């Protein structure tokens, strides 16, 4: 017998998949690039330049990031609208996680919109007006100027926290929704792993953000090699 795939079934499966494969992978790459700032300005700007040099970058941006992100976020808001949260009556841990996944999702919908306009395009009036895209040699200074505004830094750290949790718990949700993790004990250990991953991503992401206003981020400076502010290390765009 052939299976009949309903629209909702396919959209949900696609929603679960887009959260992990393009978006989850992208977030790891993003945190890796950000963490280059811990080693200083030159290291970060070289990393940004390396991204600029990826072949077919525009297609990767559109099909690997922009479209999956649009689908995941818009459909995520539709899913969230169906929820009838009852955490006050039934305050169990997993029920709170259910609520948090939707709350962080809606916060990230707004935050990522702001973040992309703010740094990728430089289009938020009153804040940075220079796009990082196409200006790899200015990337560090643009971000450093933004993060020296306290509320912007706090907003970004909140964004990192929300993304770290949403993604890490998303791995757990994917594992149960695709029948990879099934039993109670397996669920528990998988959840421990995801909580550890969320904490790790948050610490790495926050440290990278702080590295733009304080050398070596939150770590003692002795742990970081300081190549100094040597802009000539970055290949200039032609």
């Amino acid at each position, binding site marked *: 017998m052939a299976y009949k795939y309903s629209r909702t079934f396919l959209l949900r499966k696609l929603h679960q998949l887009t959260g992990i494969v393009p978006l989850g992978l992208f977030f790891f790459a993003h945190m890796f690039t950000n963490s280059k700032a811990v080693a200083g300005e030159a290291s970060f700007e070289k990393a940004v330049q390396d991204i600029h040099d990826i072949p077919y970058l525009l297609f990767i941006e559109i099909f690997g990031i922009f479209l999956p992100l649009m689908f995941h976020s818009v459909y995520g808001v539709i899913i969230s609208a*169906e929820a009838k949260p009852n955490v006050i009556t*039934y305050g169990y841990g997993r029920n709170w996680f259910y609520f948090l996944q939707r709350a962080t999702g809606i916060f990230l919908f707004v935050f990522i919109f702001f973040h992309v306009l703010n740094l990728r395009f430089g289009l938020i009036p009153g804040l940075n007006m220079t796009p990082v895209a196409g200006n790899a040699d200015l990337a560090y200074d643009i971000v450093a100027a933004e993060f020296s505004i306290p509320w912007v830094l706090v907003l970004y750290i909140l964004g990192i926290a929300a993304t770290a949790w949403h993604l890490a718990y998303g791995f757990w949700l994917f594992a149960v929704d695709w029948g990879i993790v*099934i039993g109670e004990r397996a669920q528990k250990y998988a959840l421990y792993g995801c909580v550890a991953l969320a904490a790790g991503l948050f610490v790495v992401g926050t440290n990278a953000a702080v590295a733009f206003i304080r050398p070596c981020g939150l770590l003692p400076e002795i742990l970081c090699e300081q190549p100094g502010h040597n802009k000539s290390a970055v290949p200039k765009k032609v």
Partner: protein
Amino acid sequence: MSTNGHIEKKRLENPPKSFKLKIQRRANENAPAVWETFELPYRRNLNVISALMDVRKDPVTVEGKQTTPPVWDMSCLEQVCGICTMVIDGRVRQSCSALIDDLLLASGSDTISLQPMSKFPNVRDLKVDRSKMFDHLKQVHAWIELDGSYDLGPGPHISNEVAQERYAYSRCMTCGCCLEACPQYGDDNYIGPQAIAQARLFNMHPTGKTNIDERLSGLMGDEGITNCGNAQNCVEVCPMSIPLPKAIYETNRDITVNALFGWLSK
């Protein structure tokens, strides 16, 4: 709830002379909900049903207003039929096994609130129409085909392990607790854990397995299994301690293997 071993009964040390039942009432399915409060003399070993029976004998509210006797469903009175399920002090459970002493101890107040389940069409007062759950059982083909034009012979052997796991799912009494507590269930957009667990029960049976396609198809609709949000309230409120999330995730694996990736083996 422990199913083995003795459960120590908790008793009120200094029981009150009386306590109150606050009941959410509706004259019929379309009538607006109104609250009525009744004061009852306290007796030892009262449960919610016997308290409701006391109200029924003389339905006069605390304001002294004569009213109609409240309507509710009940049958077995030992938490195996599921029909007396209602929302007691905000939480869904069976009213037969809800002891007044426990409720007063837990809330620390002298009032117990009773509401009908909110996710089912209301009939009157505390009585709801649960027929949707039985429609869902039909939708997921929750039975085994046994009829043939000839004697099919004895059924296949089932290992003790499988039999035990199936037994857990077979304890479902279609009470509706899991659906009431589920933040995804409602407005017909999710079939809910009850039907999924029953589909799993029959998919685990060697003879029932022959109809796995029908069951999975019944779960892949617009209101199907993918609408599960993994809040897992179902297993927390299930009076029969059925491992409902496990049933859902086992079925998710069946769907991933058969329905989603099955074409790769064609």
